[in-house]
């Protein structure tokens, strides 16, 4: 009982997470392509590519976007409610573009202002995204606001990029970037260039050292960092092919910058190899249809159980409703993302839950027919059905495990909901139904075998086994 109430609380408090096929959005699989220079992709490379892709995804301004590693050379990107999947696909593909550019003379004030404007937009965007209900579809009005904000941000970024001169010092000349601490214990990012890059970097730094102009480090045309060059390098520039970027770094921000820089230095092209996009209206439509189908199916099952199994059937119906609530609550608690096949898995697990009850009741009937008392029949009905229930559920769980382990995307969702459902159904069949049954036979008005097995009265002995 307490569990049921808790389940209802959970369902109302924690929203159900809906998959992209239900709420609308794009799911992209990105494959990292090995090149002649890098024939095999290491884990470190993947981390770096992931950070590049994450940077691009953030640039899209989609709330609750997810980037996950998939296997050893793929990334899965989920973009809920993305309004322009073509743009997303274009932005996410391609090799990272890292550039070190010199700030144009006399743009200090402009840079500060543009930066402030951009920060303002980004703050507003973060606040807006935080205020959105998680997992739900976005209203049209908010969608317009999000899109306007997004174009403002892009305009700001373009304006900032315009304040820097184009340059020929790019990611292909950067060999490494590592976060570390300097002698004073502050966090810094050390970068290293190859020979050619070292020379160009020296030229670049010589030109701007001491002028108050900054080096703009751009990844995919977005400013990552704009360090200034100390006046002592005005004579020769920073030579030797290496430099340290210092500033108000924390361990985290230094690491992030280092990974982004490495990402820019990695000439690994990425390609979008799978795109699954569902329009928001279409998703809503399929939720309604599946829910409708599920409810109709469930209602049919409940009616059948009550008609065929009488009193125990009605008790099982109660247990089934408790089961459905518990499972739903478990999905919300565990943060299971519900997809269309996931809903199918849920509906199927209801079938499994019914099966456990059917096994028990059939067994109880048999015991009743062989002239046992009601109490003993119910007792041994549960006891004897247990081994069948266990075996049946374990074999289903084996299939679920295999699906979950090898499957991808939608398949995983199905395996997860069916698996959770099967586990909970064993629990409810063996505890809820049992408690209800024993409660019922402890009440005298229910203690009539005919309520349990039609065609069998309490007076007429039935010696014939079928």
């Amino acid at each position, binding site marked *: 009982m307490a569990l049921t109430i808790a389940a209802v609380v959970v369902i109302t408090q924690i929203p159900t997470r809906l998959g992209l096929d239900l709420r*609308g959005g*794009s799911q992209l699989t990105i494959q990292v392509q090995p090149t002649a220079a890098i024939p095999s992709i290491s884990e470190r490379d993947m981390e770096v590519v992931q950070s590049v892709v994450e940077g691009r995804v953030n640039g899209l301004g989609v709330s609750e976007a997810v980037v996950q590693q998939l296997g050893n050379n793929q990334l899965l990107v989920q973009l809920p409610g993305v309004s322009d*999947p*073509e743009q997303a*696909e274009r932005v996410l*593909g391609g090799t990272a573009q890292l550039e070190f550019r010199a700030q144009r003379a006399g743009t200090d004030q402009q840079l500060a202002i543009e930066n402030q404007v951009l920060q303002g937009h980004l703050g507003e965007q973060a606040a807006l995204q935080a205020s959105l209900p998680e997992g739900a579809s976005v209203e049209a009005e908010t969608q317009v606001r999000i899109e306007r904000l997004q174009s403002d941000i892009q305009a700001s970024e373009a304006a900032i990029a315009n304040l820097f001169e184009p340059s020929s010092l790019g990611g292909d000349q950067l060999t490494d970037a590592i976060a570390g601490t300097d002698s004073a214990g502050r966090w810094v990012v050390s970068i290293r260039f190859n020979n050619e890059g070292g020379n160009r970097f020296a030229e670049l730094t010589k030109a701007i050292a001491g002028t108050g102009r900054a080096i703009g480090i751009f990844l995919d045309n977005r400013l990552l960092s704009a360090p200034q060059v100390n006046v002592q390098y005005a004579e020769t520039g920073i030579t030797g092919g290496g430099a340290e970027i210092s500033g108000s770094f924390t361990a985290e921000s230094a690491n992030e910058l280092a990974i982004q820089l490495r990402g820019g230095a990695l000439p690994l092209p990425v*390609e*979008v*190899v*799978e*795109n*699954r*996009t*569902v*329009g928001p209206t*279409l998703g809503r*439509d399929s939720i309604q249809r*599946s829910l*409708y*189908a*599920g409810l*109709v*199916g469930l209602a*049919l*099952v409940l009616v*059948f*159980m009550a008609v*065929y199994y009488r009193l125990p059937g009605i008790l099982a119906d109660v247990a089934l409703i408790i089961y459905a609530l518990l499972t739903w609550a478990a999905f919300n608690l565990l943060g299971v993302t519900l997809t*269309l*096949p996931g809903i*199918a898995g849920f*509906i199927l697990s209801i*079938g*499994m839950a*019914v*099966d456990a009850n*059917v*096994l028990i009741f*059939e067994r109880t*009937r048999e015991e009743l027919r062989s002239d046992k008392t009601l109490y003993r029949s119910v007792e041994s009905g549960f006891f*004897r059905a247990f*081994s*069948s229930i266990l*075996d*049946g559920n374990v*074999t*289903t769980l*084996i*299939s*679920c*495990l*295999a*699906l979950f*382990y*090898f499957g*991808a995307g*939608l*398949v995983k969702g199905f395996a997860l909901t*069916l698996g959770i459902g099967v586990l909970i159904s064993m629990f409810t069949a063996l505890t809820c139904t049992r408690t209800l049954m024993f409660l019922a036979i402890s009440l005298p008005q229910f203690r009539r075998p005919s309520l349990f097995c039609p065609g069998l009265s309490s007076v007429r002995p039935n010696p014939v086994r*079928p």
Partner: protein
Amino acid sequence: MKLNIIQQRRLWWAISGALVLASLVAMAISWQQFGAPLRPGLDFAGGTRLQLTRTCVTTDSCTEALDLSEVRQVLGQQGLDSSSLQVLGDDQQVLSVRTRTLDVDERTTLQSVLNEAIGPFDASSTQIDSVGPVIGKQLLVSGLLALLVSFAGIVIYLSLRFKLDYALLAILALAHDVIITAGVFAVLGLVLGVEVDSLFIVSLLTIVGFSVNDTVVIYDRVRENLKLSPGNHINDIVDSAVNQTLGRSINTSLTTILPLVAIFIFGGQTLKYFALALIVGFLAGSYSSIFVASSLLALWRERTGQAYSSDPEDVNPQPEAQS
């Protein structure tokens, strides 16, 4: 109702054999046509599918039907002659185009020329599925691997809980169910152009899980009866085990298939054939559990000289069987 499983076993085997044979023939024919036992869908073959809904659906003002010849003309101009077309939806205003794998630019161009020719389309009910050939292969391999691993897992589990011969016969019954389901879809692929995607592999795995459940319930009863009356002939034991569990077998199949029928009738496009595969598989599963797996067990025991159980494992209750 009482079924004579053993007496009429030749009949049951003949039915199963005929169905399996027909399924294999259907798969062979479709192998000749598509180079695969079933018509491979987008997930496995790779390609791009665009599903576009006309705006007039949302305002309920559709007057003219979609003109497929016009669509074909547009596709021809784009060099996509070999694409397949389908018109969907209650009022036939949804266009589904399947082409080879297109990149973003090709796809955007196609979308905009289609929009001009037969649109306008409602952007918020557009569906795009684009699968590269690498991913297609990956999905197929992982799906088949999942199927094999769960077969192996089930054999191991059942031989631990029962004995190896039960496990192997149960797998035989499973293979029967999977082949028949695949056969039905091979026929559907040949006749109606129904394609199989990764959800079909999911449905096969679910069928495996459920149908082994059916078989296990009967075998569980056989094992129990062997303990209770070790002196009886295996044929009688199997017969009574099947009949004792018959009510359960029918009711469970019924209660599982009811929601599936609901999904098949009312559910969305994606789930329709998924539900159908499950319905076919569960029906085959119930049949094979009741008629085939049971009678094969009896035959096996008889042929190997175990018609009367003398095995102490069968006679003495195992501790875990009672837990």
